Structure formats: structure tokens, C-alpha cells
């Protein structure tokens, strides 16, 4: 039996941590964005549904305000902008794209290829999320005139609101990304997450305040919602945008968002480790 000599057999390329793999991760993100455009018709269809929803919300809330002036503290015009922004944020989450991708990879077993790459699986998934997000943002920009017509758009409430909105939106994407990664990872146990994804999107879009602002939820429900991460994905940035959440209260909300990023990040890491321990690649 010939012993393998350890030193001379080392591969010419050394392993690198993910933060030194920007080039590779950027490339993955770019491909994911490109792949989204392969399904641009589906994307546009979903965006169309979102736009119809924005339009319907505008009509419903308009009627409600007409019947009961001052039903909410926020003026109707601001509310419509809030709803438009909130729905765009929800629509731009790459939940569906990435969970569908991961589910298919796990079920067919092609996830093996993602696992034998010199770039970690989690960084790859994050890059995919970012790419998917980039792809949808491009589509949103193109569709903006239609969106403005269906709902209503205005500039952020002020310069400070704009800056805070940017920070808050970034946190929101972080939270939504972590949630959708954890959702996708369920597939390692169940192999099937279509139903779960549908349920998640439904519940999340309601609890996030994309249909009804969280501020008007009745007592107990409001407490529950405030303790869940969903409102931090949508309600917080959209409220900051229209200026209904300002000053120290807005900073507190952003701080809470950051806390969610940390908590969910830890939870996702734990879940990932457990998933890896029980990876049994399907088939073969």
C-alpha cells in the first residue's frame, strides 16, 4: 500500500473564506438575475397581480375614508403611497425564486453540485438571493409608471426619511432573506415546501402590514405582530418612507430590525448545521 504524501499533493489553489470570494459570489448573483429574466413573463404576471392588488387597496381604502373620514391617523394620500411602497417591497422579495430553486435542487439531488463547490453553500444562496432581488428591482423600475398609476407614488417624506428608509429597507431585505432561507431549508427535512411557501407568503404579507398598516391592528393581534419579524420587513421601511414613523421611534424600529437580523442569522446558522448533519442526498 502506498502512502499518499500529504505535502506534495496539496492542490495548487488554497481554500478561501467567503469574504475573499467576491468575484465568484458576484458571478452567482449575476447569473441568478439573468435567470430571472428567463422567466420574465411569470415575473410580469406576478407583478401584474401585485399592481391589481395595489389598485384594489386604493379603491377599498378610498371608499372607507369617504364613509368614515379620519378612520386612521394617517392621511389617505399618505396611506396610498404607504400601501404602494409596501406591496412593491413584498413583491421584490426573492422568496419564491430561491425557495423554488432550492426545493428542486434538493428533490432532484442536484444540490450535490452546490455542496462540492469551492464556495460555501450558504454564501452561494445569499448571492442568489441578492441576484434575485436585483433582478426584481430592475423590473420594478421599468414598471414604475404603471405602479404609480395604479396606486400612488411620491418622494420620501424628507432627506432624513430617505436615508433612514434606505437603512431600514436594507435591514428589511436581510430579515426577509433570512426568513426565506430558513423556509427553503425546511426542504432538507420534508423535500416539499410548495404548500409551506404559499402559506408563508400569505401570512407574511398580511402580518407585514402590506394590506393593512400594522398601526391599526386590534390590541392582541397588534401585540403578536409586533413580536414577529414580519412587520420589520415591510411596515417599518414603508412607514419611514411616508413619514408616519419618524424620529427616535423610527430609530428604535431600525434597532429592532437589526436585532431581528442577528437573531434570525443565528437561527438560520443553527438550522443549517442541523440540515448538514442530516443531509441524505436523494436518489442514486
Amino acid at each position, binding site marked *: *500500500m*502506498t*502512502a*499518499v*504524501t*500529504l*505535502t506534495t*499533493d*496539496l*492542490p495548487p*489553489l*488554497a*481554500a*478561501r473564506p467567503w469574504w475573499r470570494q467576491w*468575484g*465568484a459570489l458576484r*458571478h*452567482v448573483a449575476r*447569473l441568478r438575475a*439573468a*435567470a430571472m429574466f*428567463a*422567466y420574465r413573463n411569470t415575473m410580469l404576471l406576478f407583478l401584474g397581480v401585485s399592481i391589481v392588488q395595489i389598485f384594489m387597496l386604493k379603491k377599498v381604502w378610498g371608499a372607507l375614508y369617504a364613509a368614515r373620514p379620519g378612520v386612521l391617523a394617517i392621511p389617505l394620500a399618505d396611506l396610498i403611497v404607504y400601501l404602494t411602497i409596501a406591496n412593491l417591497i413584498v413583491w421584490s422579495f426573492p422568496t419564491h425564486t430561491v425557495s423554488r430553486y432550492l426545493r428542486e435542487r434538493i428533490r*432532484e*439531488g*442536484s444540490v*450535490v*453540485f452546490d*455542496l*462540492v*463547490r*469551492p*464556495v*460555501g453553500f450558504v454564501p452561494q444562496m445569499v448571492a442568489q438571493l441578492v441576484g434575485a432581488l436585483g433582478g426584481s428591482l430592475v423590473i420594478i423600475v421599468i414598471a414604475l409608471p404603471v405602479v404609480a398609476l395604479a396606486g400612488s407614488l411620491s418622494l420620501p417624506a424628507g432627506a432624513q426619511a430617505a436615508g433612514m428608509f434606505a437603512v431600514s429597507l436594507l435591514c428589511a431585505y436581510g430579515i426577509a432573506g433570512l426568513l426565506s432561507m430558513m423556509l427553503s431549508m425546511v426542504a432538507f427535512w420534508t423535500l416539499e415546501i410548495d404548500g409551506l411557501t404559499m402559506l408563508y407568503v400569505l401570512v407574511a404579507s398580511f402580518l407585514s402590514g402590506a394590506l393593512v398598516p400594522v398601526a391599526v391592528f386590534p390590541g392582541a393581534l397588534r401585540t403578536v405582530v409586533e413580536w414577529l419579524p414580519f412587520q420589520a420587513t415591510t411596515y417599518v421601511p414603508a412607514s419611514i418612507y411616508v413619514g408616519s414613523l419618524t424620529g427616535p421611534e423610527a430609530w428604535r424600529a431600525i434597532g429592532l430590525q437589526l436585532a431581528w437580523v442577528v437573531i434570525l442569522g443565528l437561527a438560520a446558522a443553527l438550522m443549517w448545521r442541523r440540515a448538514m448533519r442530516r*443531509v*441524505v*442526498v436523494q*436518489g*442514486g
Partner: protein
Amino acid sequence: MIRVEGLTKEFTRPKRQTGHFAGLRTMATREVERTTAVDDVSFDIQSGEMVGYIGPNGAGKSTTIKIMTGILVPTSGTVEVGGVVPWKDRQRNALQIGVVFGQRTQLWWDLPLKDSLDLIATLYRMPPELYRKQFDRFVDMLDMAEFLDRPVRQLSLGQRMRGDLAAAMLYQPRILYLDEPTIGLDVVAKATMRDFIEEVNREHGTTVVLTTHDIADVERLCSRVILIDHGRVLYDGTPAELKLRYAPHRTLVVRVAGDGEQTDPMTDADVAAFGAEIVPDDGADPDLVRLRFEGGRTAASDLIAALAARYSIADVSIVEPDLEGVVRQIYLRQGLPE
């Protein structure tokens, strides 16, 4: 290059319950079933070797490959690939291996083939000029020019497999795991794949581990066969030795000249002296006689000379046992013949 010692992998799954609410009870149960997919497997593979890793379905081939690629962690035993323990040092292992799973693809389904190859070059940090050189060469060798810009989902199986093979070898990995790379391909496509694998092995000294159900792949490419079944190694050696050991019989096919003269039919007694026996005839052609003899013990020339002395012979040919037949026998018996 690859050292595997005492490798064992057990899978546990909840014991499936039967009767009422079987599904629910299966979920709730704590009882587990153990199956041993790989059972105390050991082998050494030298740098540059091409090894056929064969066995019937469910023999444990893919499990072994998955352990060697670092995807699965074994229950016990040691594995070293190029000085790296695959599952402990996934990334370093990943940089030196290329993988093809014939039933799956590593290409991006919705994007042109070229996009996937570009990404591979980035992931494995290929210098641009090297990538361009390899790319041109592979496109030429595998004849991929006409479908490079087509989304992978529109490719035929043969085209897709060529793309997958290119993706696995582009960055010149030192070790290549090919899990059924020719599955479902037509004869021409198979030949292209084999030629390509052979050339890459010859040029770069790539170590190749090939699992396949097409024994022709092994005969064409491999100088060594490891045969496993029920997770155990049954045979490890050259294909020729496998044939010699387990199918020593060659067949002499004799066509007796039907020149009108009545010849007595040959009997076992006539040929027994030469250590040969008559293969029972299917009766289709009365002039054709098949004699089975052992290659090592009987010289074919003696047998022919003896026959020629008694009969007038029109034609003679010798049929060598093929590996396919040997392997079929082994699979059917679920073990090696004694």
C-alpha cells in the same frame, strides 16, 4: 491519490409502521431501521489511474462516491483524497475534484450553456487565458459550438451530458468522479464521451473513478475494476484477470463442411480428451458446432488440429468471453462464483 480504508456507511431511517394510521405512526415512531450501504470497503487508487467502480443497483457505488466527494460523512473508516479528508476539508477537496452525476446536471437550467461554463471558470478561479484555451479546446473536442448559446433546458440529453462533462473538467481537476456518465446516451455520443475522458486522462494524468452500468465503458477505459455488491468489495483487479478468473471458458466455433459426405456428429467423447465439451446446440444450423474449453488448459491449436484430422472443417473462430457476460453472471448470482 485516493486511499479508502475500512469505509462503512450506515443509514438510519424511521421504521415504517403498518396498519391503521401507518403514516402518522411512522412519523411519531422512535424505532429506526439500519441499512448498511457501504460495508468495510478498502482500496487505493494511484495518481493517473482510471478505475471502473461497478456493481448492481443499490450496491453502494454512489454512496462511496458521495463520501469521496465530501458530501456524506461515513459512519466509520478513513478516506484521503489527495491528502485531504473530503468531509472535513470540503473546500480544499472541492478545488481538486470534478464530478459528473449522469442523472443530474450542474448546469444552469434556464441559461445558455456558455453562462454555466463561465461561472465554473470563476468559481474555480481560472486565469482568463487558461479558461479561454480550455474552453476552445473543449468546444472543439466535444463539438459544442452549435448549442453553446442555447438554454440548457432545450438541449438534448447527449448535448447536455457533453456540457456537464466539460463543466466537470474545465478547471483541470486532478480527480474526476464520473457517476454513470453515459447513461441514456446513443452509441455515437457514448463514443465521444469515452474518447474525451481518455484524452483528458492521458494528457493531464487525471485520476478517474467511473461508475457505470455499461460495461463497454469499463472495457474501453479502465485498466482496473473494483466490483462491489451489498456494500462489499468482491473483486479488485484488471478486467482481463476478472474474465480469466470468473469466465475462463472460451468457445471454439467450428463449421463442418457439408460436402455431401456423411460425417458422424461430434460427441462429447470425441473432444473430452482435449478438455473441451460441446455446447448444447440450438439446432438452427446442424453444421455449426460450439466447443467450450478452458483457455489456460487447452491450446486452441491442438483442439483444431485434432478436429481437422477427423472432419473437414470449413471455418473456425474463437469467441472470447466478454466482461459484460461475466458481470451479468456475478450480478445474477449475487456473489462471485466459487
